[in-house]
């Protein structure tokens, strides 16, 4: 299977730039997955978790609060406003990332029904890591 190029950008810099097997994005209308050679599309993303399946089949999760994704044949560009990558080498790193992620969720003030699912996803992503 060919690989797709993925770029995730925040106002504070790049958070992910590399290849991936597939990526799952929290679209406004619901979650959707993108594989390589997906047809072009542009859509908004809601608060949620981006799951990236990396080349070694491991999954990396990145929490976002709002974004827009632009997919074309060559690559996927995701522009997000706030993002926290849930990753880390040690347990303390992971728990720190989790704390940051929770802070980000707190900052999304409006009554977004997506938030409940986001929190649940976050916990499970963290479980997988530990």
């Amino acid at each position, binding site marked *: 299977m060919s690989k797709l190029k993925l*770029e995730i*950008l*925040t*106002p*504070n*810099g*790049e958070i992910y730039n590399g290849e991936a097997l597939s990526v799952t994005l929290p*679209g*406004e*209308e619901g979650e*959707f997955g993108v594989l390589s050679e997906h*047809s*072009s*599309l*542009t*859509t*908004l993303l809601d608060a949620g978790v981006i799951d990236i399946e990396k080349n070694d089949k491991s999954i990396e999760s990145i929490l976002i609060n*709002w974004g*827009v994704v*632009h997919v*074309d*044949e060559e690559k996927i*560009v995701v*522009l997000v*406003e706030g993002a926290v990558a849930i990753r880390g080498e040690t347990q303390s790193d992971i728990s720190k990332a989790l704390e940051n992620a929770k802070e980000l969720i707190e900052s999304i003030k409006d009554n977004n029904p997506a938030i409940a699912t986001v929190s649940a996803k976050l916990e499970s992503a963290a479980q997988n890591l530990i």
Partner: protein
Amino acid sequence: MANLKDIQRQIKSVSNTQKTTRAMKLVSTAKLRRAEELARRSRLYAAKMNQVIAEIAGRIKCNKVGGIDNRCFTEIETPKTVDVVFVTADKGLCGGFNIQTIKTVKKLLAEYKEKNIKVRLRGVGKKGVEFFKYNEVELFDSVIDLSSKPDKEKADKFIEASIEDFKDGKIDGLQIVYNGFKNMMTQELHVLKLLPVDTEQFDCNEEQKSILEIEAEDDEKMLDSLVNRYVQYAMYYALIDSVAAEHSARMQAMDTATNNAKDMVKILNVKFNKARQAAITTELIEIISGVESMK
């Protein structure tokens, strides 16, 4: 010949100025490093955002996406009122940094006046606001502490008013003028047309690689929200870019001032020595002629 005391006083005052300007340069250098880092990190995001918007705008222009009639993406042929937002610094002592922006704004105002287009001037930064107030140019509104401490929330609120007015049809255009950071030595003036989204560079005859599909069912809502974010971010980016440029301009201005002060101290020292020598010579002549007369 000037009084010795006077010259001494002058030397002291110039070297004091030199100390101040040197300190200001150091402060600016430190601040520049931080501001530039912030601007550099955001640059990529801003560029990609522009790219995405430009692509959507281009496709809408070329009628690749049917049934979308959004005011933000339609060229307005006879604009009546236009918002011009300018960003200047809150402080002076940074060379031509502020005046460059002001000059460009004045030129824009003249251009619009010729075309009979009403301009609502919205100012950010004390220096520019003061200038236009002093020259009795009407400002639609202004904020003062935003340009020295860019704050995303405040910037959003400020520009939101223009976006709303544009969508309501109260204004037909939104432009932003600011002096941005190019490198340590130079600043670059930017005049950006934010609304309606500039589609001029887009060539419809060019073969398109792919077809755009907009996923959300409510296209209008998505475009609206996207345009909001785009304009808000452009405003915020203008602010942080402007801060970086301000510090680089001030650093340079203060460097020049320090050098000038150094030169001046040198000249004054020579002058002081000459005056001192002249005084000694006069004294000697007086003594010698006194001795001569006693003979």
